[in-house]
């Protein structure tokens, strides 16, 4: 019989659908009988969704600006339309 502590240990696997059928069924059985674990799974799922909605990896605009600056500079050293089969540059003088 699955105990609450054990269920808490595999709660994420249950939420993500990573459990075997047998394991999943025993979690479902337990959840039918245990409101605390129902509450825990619900809370854990909501915490996860919170993260999905949260721009958890928000980037400072200044970081983006610095990257764009470098990319722009690098692009200016690149031919406008790439030759699909570029010849070695005959004018290379360095």
């Amino acid at each position, binding site marked *: 019989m699955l105990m609450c502590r054990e269920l808490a240990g595999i709660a994420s696997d249950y939420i993500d659908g990573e459990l075997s059928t047998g394991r999943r069924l025993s979690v479902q059985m337990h959840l039918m009988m245990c409101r605390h674990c129902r509450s825990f799974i619900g809370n854990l799922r909501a915490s996860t969704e919170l993260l999905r909605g*949260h721009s958890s990896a928000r980037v400072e605009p200044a*970081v983006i600006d610095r*990257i764009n600056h470098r990319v722009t500079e690098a692009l200016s050293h*690149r031919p406008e339309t790439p030759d699909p089969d570029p010849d070695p540059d005959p004018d290379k003088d360095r």
Partner: protein
Amino acid sequence: MTVNAHPNLDESRLVEALKRGEQAAFTEAVSTYTAGMLAVARYYVDPANAEEIVQDCWVTVIDAVRRFEGRSGLKTWLHRIVANRCKNLLRTSHREITTDFTERLEPELESRFKTSGRWATPPKLRFDESADVLLENGALSDCLDKHLGHLPENQRSALILYEAHQHKSDDVCNILDVSASNLRVMLHRARQKIFLMVETFQETGEC
């Protein structure tokens, strides 16, 4: 998060524009993909070096994207470039692994069970509100930022790549160089911390 009806169509259009070296395409790609790339870099190196690595990666992408064949998605491909660059830089890595992969429960949660394995201190919350409503609470959002900042780097990166960037498990394992079972533990440990944080926040109003 951007939900797109035809992500692949849009992505292939973006890839073609990147291959042509169009500035606007790069600006769009940089703003879309940099956050995830930084999360990958921060898994391997400290934050101060992460930005520089991501910058360098974007510069290499200018040429490398011409060889992009679309076997993986653009995002996964970019994340792998960052991961490979970090791994090359860190041939002798002293990365601190702060997760005990044998423990599936956070100590703080573990202590809430009786020896019988039943709850002694059950969850106090009911999540009646949807995540969107909760996030409208700016203080909670700030609190989330703070706690994400305090997660061990490996747990945070796993969480960000898996949740915020919706990578498949296989891709996260590949990018972060972890086994599938260890990834499961990292995700679960990180989610428990977020759960505990939200619980405390809702109960006390404090972060």
